[in-house]
């Protein structure tokens, strides 16, 4: 019989904790809580603890109009029993607060922590895997740009826009910086922590000339790079905005129809993200809401297509050293020469579908149970040049910049096009606006016939069952033989 846990638990209730950092100092209380959970009869218990410092700044027309720091801390406890899971989240990180959350999660399974002199499971956690030691992460906070200096960067960029861009009606520059401290502990022994610095910068303009309007935005972002704001190339950003907004201001509305299309690199990768990526997450497989659920090993795409979901692309917006279940990040080959090779899987995905875990368990914050999600997802480069692709089309559309999109469980997807041009006789000609690309996942993958050699990535935000997360989409320029474009 082990009374140590009982006595310790009683002591722990009365100790006030140092909430400054997660680490070894949390071992004892988490081992006891996990022991309580196992003693109740749960198959698996996991604690996810989070502290987040976030600030967001907006500069509009030369003035800082919004500056909002937020301080969030919370924990989530997940309990599995016979493949059914429960999840309880709380803002109370005291021992009693976490125990209350655990009791609530166990209660959902009609499990209770035994009292009195019953034998307790001794849950022993592995040595702490501390990913903050990589890349000198503990110096992130001191090295990253301060609130005040970030505000100056935004003011400077906004001022440049106002100086350079014609017919400018409205200019917004925004930024955020987020420092997330996470700790994962599970009844299988996982004990891992990480510190994540994510930063993003966005510049938007609205131009107007009489009744003509154009609105263009550019976004940059990365992780684990304290020098991000200091190394921004403001002149290049403003130059891109100037060119795009100028072109699109007088663009004609696109005529709806079927067209061959060349999609640009970087954010053009959202086509793969929406048309295919979500449908290769076990989140969709376990709900039977993917047309690819039983297609592993089958040809699902054109043979020119190879695609990856990369856990650790250097400074990629979706990069993680470990996922939100404490599993080390990895590179996952999704499709190779058109053949479906792997799905993206987390713990629940493995339990429910049998597909091995790929370090893809992600969540927006402690309020959500982890789910299999994308990280840095891209189509691999091919042998062609961008010009090869453009010159192969008599009449079509060049989609230079895409907006957001979505996919539903039938595989039907859509995404908006922010900046498009007509292709005529193998050359890029006049600008076009108002396009939305629509199609279905199974057929579009087979129509990607050419891939260029210029792979590049772009930051994005992805919303799904475990909230909004930071991701990267990427691809080289690609040619889609035929796609439906909605327009006027």
């Amino acid at each position, binding site marked *: 019989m082990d009374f140590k846990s009982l006595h310790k638990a009683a002591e722990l209730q009365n100790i006030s904790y140092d909430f400054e950092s997660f680490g070894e100092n949390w071992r004892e209380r988490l081992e006891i809580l996990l022991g309580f959970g196992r003693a109740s009869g749960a198959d698996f218990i996991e604690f996810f603890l989070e502290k987040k410092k976030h600030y*967001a700044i*907006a500069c*509009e027309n030369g003035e*800082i109009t*919004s*500056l*909002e*720091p937020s*301080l*969030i*801390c*919370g924990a989530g406890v997940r309990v599995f029993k016979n*493949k*059914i*899971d*429960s*999840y*309880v*989240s*709380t*803002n*109370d990180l005291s021992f009693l*607060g976490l125990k209350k959350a655990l009791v*609530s999660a166990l209660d959902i399974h009609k499990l209770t922590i035994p009292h009195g002199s019953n034998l307790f499971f001794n849950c022993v956690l592995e040595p702490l895997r501390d990913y903050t030691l990589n890349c000198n992460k503990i110096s992130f906070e001191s090295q990253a740009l301060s*609130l005040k200096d970030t*505000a100056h960067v935004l003011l400077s960029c906004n001022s440049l826009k106002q100086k350079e861009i014609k017919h400018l009606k*409205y200019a917004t520059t925004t930024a955020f910086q987020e420092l997330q401290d996470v700790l994962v502990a599970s009844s299988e022994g996982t004990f891992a922590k990480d510190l994540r610095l994510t930063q993003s910068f966005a510049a938007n303009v*609205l131009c107007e000339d009489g009744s003509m*309007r*154009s*609105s263009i935005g550019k976004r940059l972002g990365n992780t684990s790079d304290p020098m991000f704001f200091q190394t921004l190339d403001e002149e290049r950003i403003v130059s891109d905005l100037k060119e795009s907004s100028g072109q699109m201001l007088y663009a004609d509305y696109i005529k*709806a*129809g*079927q067209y061959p299309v060349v999609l640009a690199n970087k954010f053009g990768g959202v086509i793969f993200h929406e048309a295919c990526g979500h449908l290769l997450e076990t989140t969709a497989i376990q*709900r*039977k*809401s993917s*047309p690819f659920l039983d297609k592993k090993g089958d040809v699902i795409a054109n043979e020119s297509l190879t695609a990856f979901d990369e856990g650790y692309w250097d400074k990629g917006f979706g990069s993680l050293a470990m996922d939100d279940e404490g599993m080390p990040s990895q590179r996952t080959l999704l499709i190779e020469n058109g053949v479906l090779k792997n799905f993206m899987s987390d713990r629940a995905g493995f339990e429910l579908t049998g597909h091995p875990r790929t370090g893809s368990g992600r969540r927006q914050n402690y*309020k959500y*149970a982890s789910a299999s999600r994308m990280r840095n997802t891209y189509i691999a480069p091919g042998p062609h040049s961008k010009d090869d692709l453009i010159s192969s089309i008599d009449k079509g559309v060049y989609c230079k910049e895409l*907006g*957001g*999109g*979505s996919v*539903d*469980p*039938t*595989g039907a997807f*859509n995404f*908006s096009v922010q900046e498009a041009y007509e292709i005529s006789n193998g050359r890029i000609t006049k600008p076009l*606006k*108002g396009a*939305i690309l*629509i*199609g*279905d996942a199974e057929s579009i993958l087979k129509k990607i016939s050419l891939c260029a050699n210029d792979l590049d990535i772009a930051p994005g935000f992805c919303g799904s*069952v475990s909230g909004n997360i930071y991701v990267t989409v990427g691809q080289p320029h690609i040619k889609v033989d035929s796609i*439906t474009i*909605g*327009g006027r």
Partner: protein
Amino acid sequence: MFSKNENDIKNDFMHAARDLGIQKFDMFGILSLEESSSSKDGQPFNVNTRFKHLGVIRVWTSESHLGVVRTSDLSFEGFREALKIASEAAQVRQQKDIIEFSPESNENLKPIEHDNLKSQSASLQDLMEAVVEGEKSILTASDSFLSVPYNGVGQLHVRRFYLNSEGVYKKEDKTSSWSYFYPLAQKKNKKSRQSGEYEIAKSFSLPSVINCAKKSASKTLEHLDYKAIKTKNYKVILSSEAFLDLLDAFSNCYNAQSVLDKKSLFTEKHLDSLVASPLISFFDDPLSKHNVHIEQFDEEGTPTRLTKIIENGTLKSFLHSSFTARKMKKNVTGNTILASKLGISSHFLHVTRGQSPEKNYDVNALVDTVYIDDFHAMHAGVNALQGAFSLPFNGWLLNNGKRESIEGATVAGDFLKLLNDIIFVEKEEKVTPSGVCPNIWIKNLMVTGLSS
């Protein structure tokens, strides 16, 4: 129910502020408990309980500079840290405009007769059983159903409060329950289709959950026989849900902050002028008896009230925060979202007939008309700054009283033109989770078929 007592929160906050010598401050806070469950293959799935605290705090420096911070730590130590950071933010920002408490933050709340009914709470076990029952009712309704990939039943208990350094303190408690089912079905040799139903209510009720499930099932089955549609201009009827979604997507039109920022399609000069068909009126009605989420005060403590936005096609008012109301010399409307830059949001839109129509239309006499049930991908297909939209939808082709489900199409247009092209507003108004609205008929919109 909530892990923190709001009197303790109030006392800790005031104490922390005074401890730091901060004289002027306010806070909007939320304590909530949300319980929910989904179902998969007849078993509870993703069973969730969320205990949440959040405070949005504003502090003013002696130079009247404003700093804002959000925090989930509502303890004395948490407030001290948050207040310090807010003070730092105030020094960095040094905003030019003066921002004050709402002039009506100290107004008392009036009791609402139809909001005094006690809500019935369910246990989490009740929710789990209900959603499993709901999924089962769908899967047994027809062999065509493959699964119900998205479903859920839940309930939310919320305590909202506002307090400031002038001694104002107000709070309200709300409970609501919701259910949604989005089944996937397929007919042989055809593509799979998905439709769904989402409902909210003040109280949980098992029959309501089952009813929601059955509605989603019949809606999905109705779409199994579909046909492709030609790409061209069609007369279009927007369902209540579809039109309310568009109004929400283009809310910059009636958001006073967007007007000040020159991001709206309207300007102050448009007030009291005709901006839409005279057949339409709509107003924000936060205290409507149909509104499950009645909020008696906004996040600045301003009492909410009915605001006419468009009346018989004429723009009557924007929705205001205290800041925009002061700038435009108008009255506050109780629509503020508390943040570093005050946000504005409608509560519960009510769309209704404006002027009486010159003629009544018979839906059974319509030819080659598209009826839109609901839109998808609102986040991607709307350009609010330009007034343009291009959206996929679930819908029907109507011909002489018959209707055929449309396969994967999109509709595109200009929002301001759409408002002026309204040719008919039906009399019967439908209550939805986000508002009240009848079907709205539009002269024509461009529809693109998937295989055109």
